[in-house]
């Protein structure tokens, strides 16, 4: 297989590619604009009835703990704010396909979701704590950082043991092995998909450079937030696949975020607390999927 297929071939030939409803993509783009309009966000959600229903169900989950029921998506935008609703739209749009197992990475049902959601929560926390990036954009970037794995999985089925053996023998990270075998890695495939979806540039960069934030030139804080969120998620064992924690960590990203390594344990504790709080949202996701 090595060298015989281009990244474009892989994307073209993969039948079960991840997808995000166009209404949700429009919501992300609108919410990212400096002059974003809550009314427009509500209008975009209204374009997709199934998305609107799922967003509404999430808005009424125990996570938000509202004293009364939100009755429609317009009200959700007013009560929760357009950035929260944008995140709900992303959760509602990705959950149905992210809970599927990914055999190529040895990820069982829901594990891709657990890892992606963990990274979203982690990236959001780091963005909030450091004030270096918009926490909601960091959340979306974290949620999508591994979308390339969804496309690549089928091409790696049955190859994982050999890939891990190569990683150990040649002292390589897993993304290095992917590049050796295919000529590109899951981050590049993910960035390609993100560009196809016309996602905002910082999200594309976060997906492309999440394992190598130092290669993002000029540096982009959201990339560093996702890198650190990914580290927190891997460290806590959320949704680990066969590639495990076999990825490099950039201490330069930490310096750019002005995070003192001494604060690591507190960040870990805050991350897990935040993730557990978000599980109240999960309680309703199965019905919303």
């Amino acid at each position, binding site marked *: 297989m090595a060298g015989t297929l281009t990244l474009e071939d892989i994307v073209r030939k993969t039948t079960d590619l991840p997808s995000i409803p166009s209404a949700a993509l429009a919501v992300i783009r609108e919410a990212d604009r400096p002059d974003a309009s809550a009314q427009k966000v509500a209008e975009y959600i209204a374009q997709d009835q199934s998305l609107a229903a799922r967003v509404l169900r999430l808005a009424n989950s125990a996570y938000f703990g509202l004293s009364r029921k939100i009755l429609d998506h317009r009200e959700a935008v007013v009560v929760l704010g357009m950035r929260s609703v944008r995140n709900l739209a992303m959760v509602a749009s990705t959950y149905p396909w992210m809970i599927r197992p990914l055999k190529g990475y040895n990820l069982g049902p829901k594990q891709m979701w657990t890892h992606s959601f963990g990274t979203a929560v982690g990236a959001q926390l780091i963005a909030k704590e450091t004030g270096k990036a918009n926490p909601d954009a960091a959340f979306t970037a974290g949620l999508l950082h591994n979308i390339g794995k969804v496309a690549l999985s089928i091409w790696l089925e049955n190859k994982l043991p050999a890939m891990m053996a190569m990683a150990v023998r040649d002292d390589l990270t897993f993304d290095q092995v992917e590049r050796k075998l295919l000529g590109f890695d899951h981050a590049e495939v993910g960035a390609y998909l993100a560009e196809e979806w016309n996602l905002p540039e910082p999200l594309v960069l976060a997906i492309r450079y999440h394992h190598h934030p130092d290669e993002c030139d000029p540096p982009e804080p959201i990339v560093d937030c996702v890198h650190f969120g990914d580290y927190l998620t891997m460290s*806590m064992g959320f949704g680990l696949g066969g590639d495990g924690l076999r990825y490099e960590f950039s201490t330069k990203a*930490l310096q750019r975020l002005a995070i003192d*390594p001494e604060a690591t344990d507190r960040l870990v504790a805050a991350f897990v607390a935040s993730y557990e709080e978000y599980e109240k949202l999960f309680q309703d996701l199965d019905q919303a999927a």
Partner: protein
Amino acid sequence: MVATQLLVGMAEIQVAKEGPLFVCLGLGSCIGLAAYDPVAKVAGMVHVMLPAAFADKPVDKPGKFADTGVPHLLEQMARLGASRSRILVAMAGGAQVFNFGTGSAGKLDIGRRNADAVEAQVQALGLRCLGKDVGGNQGRTMTFDSGSGLVKVRTVTSMERALCSLKGS
């Protein structure tokens, strides 16, 4: 007969009279510590997340930290009749990302620090450790069958393997 399964979630402590299968799922840098008193037939497990409790914060879950989790595990086992001097333990987990570079990043290596902190508790409390599988870059699942005493570890890509028996044989 299939043993009752006791899932030991992150920061949790579970204890029981012998019989159940204790399971720590998805250990990344966390440590699972299985413990057993073969005379009192009392078993337990803790899923430690961080090395040490914060000096300025109350401890919400003792199992979260090595320095509170291991002593609490022993206390809970003692309530069921276990005696510290007889307790045998085994530990697994403590994985870390591939490369931290050099310099001030030592604190980031939670896996190694967790393993060191649990080991320090084991030594300080005078427990005999019969099996240890820590470090590396792979997530682990650890099981302890308190009926047979067998502690097993598996990674996502490897078959389950026996680490040791806490029946003391």
